[in-house]
């Protein structure tokens, strides 16, 4: 595994419609607040978080969630 940099989950707030699929996919990393706005709970993702983070990104029906960082290609 390479650790060339830190990966984070990024929400495109203009795009997010609050479906909450990300929370269902990765409850340890993201939750929705009372207004159904996603809140990223883990700022810097470790390797162990990656499968869940990917699942959350994939679960977003409007592709509002992305992974930043070196290995997001």
């Amino acid at each position, binding site marked *: 595994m390479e650790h060339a940099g830190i990966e984070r989950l990024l929400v495109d707030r203009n795009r997010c419609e*609050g479906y909450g699929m990300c*929370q*269902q*996919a990765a409850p340890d990393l993201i939750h929705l607040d009372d207004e159904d706005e996603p809140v990223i709970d883990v700022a810097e993702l470790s390797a162990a978080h990656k*499968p*869940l983070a*990917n699942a959350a990104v*994939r679960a977003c029906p409007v592709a509002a969630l992305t*992974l930043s960082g070196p290995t*997001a290609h």
Partner: protein
Amino acid sequence: MTGLERIVVVGASQAGCGAASALRGLGFDGEITVIGDEPHRPYTRPPLSKGVLTGVEPEHSVFLPAPDDVRLRTGVTAVGLDREKSAVELADGEHLPYDGLVIATGARARRLGTAVGTGVGNGETTLRGLDDAVGLRGRLADSRDVAVAGAGFLGLEIASAAVGLGKAVTVVDQFPALLGRLGPLLADLVLAAAAEHGVRVSVAPAGVRIDRSGRLLTTDGALLAEADLVVTAAGDVPNTEWLHGSGIRLDGGVVIDNACRVAPNIVAAGDVVSAPGRDGRMTRSPHWWSALSQAKIAAATLLGREPADLVGGRPPFFWTEMFGLKIRMAGRLPPVGEPTVLDGSIAQRRALLLWPGAGPGDAFGTAVSVNLPISAPKLTRLAQRSPAHQRTL
């Protein structure tokens, strides 16, 4: 622990990639190979009939991250399954051995053009993949009059995009638009909005067909709409041909039980599956949420774990956007009877509606929001809190 070392996932889209990441999430550390016949890396389809078609969302925004630690092979087609040898046969003759198999080949657009091999069906315009969306966007730009065959969610989303681009749009279906899925109240709401946008939606009870020159006709040959672009949105067909002869049971799609099990060491998820409904009949539910939730169930089952949910155990979630309406739904479709208005009003097209379950055995009802942002989990909880009214025998 389960004795699985190599898992092969066929189909590199929502369900396939979902299953791959769920397998990793459950701690599977063997080899995962995901194969997909499209040239693209995995992407999300819902924006294809919405923002990507109108051009407000760039097409590159639909791509999904590759599942972690997975061998992704795009442009590779599975043509057969040899269960005796536990191998997937690829188009180039390669045999890909597996200990566990996930079937996630989804569905393709159904075509109305009849004669196969005459080139008629081939010229038909449909919308399923990214290339279709980019192609259709270009053809829309060159057209004035657009006809859509099929008044389901997809057909109406295409109509909505087209009318938003200034086209004259006609939609024709054999059945009243969306009635079977949405029930009369919501279907009328959509039709009223379509009419206000200037879209003509009509019913051709005998059915429609597309002739050799691509015109939209009734089955007895009457021209239904003058159009320079005809788009077929007549449902989808599960991609199961590669399983023919494998002994896998097909009934509408790949038959699964409520844990997504197909056969020993074989599971399936997404648009390709057919699951027993409440009445015991096989039903398909080819929607985003189904693919997502079944992928998780399938991954757990394949690893010999107890899945956290079972197919049909939670209210399904679905959404659509058309003619200025954003509709989100959780629970049974179509809803039956009269809803309670929890917020807003139907007349203002901004409302939160709740229907109780229809049958005495229904564990949940239907919660719908129209133009009110509410998350899937909240809507699902509402539907779950609204089971059928208890009836005494």
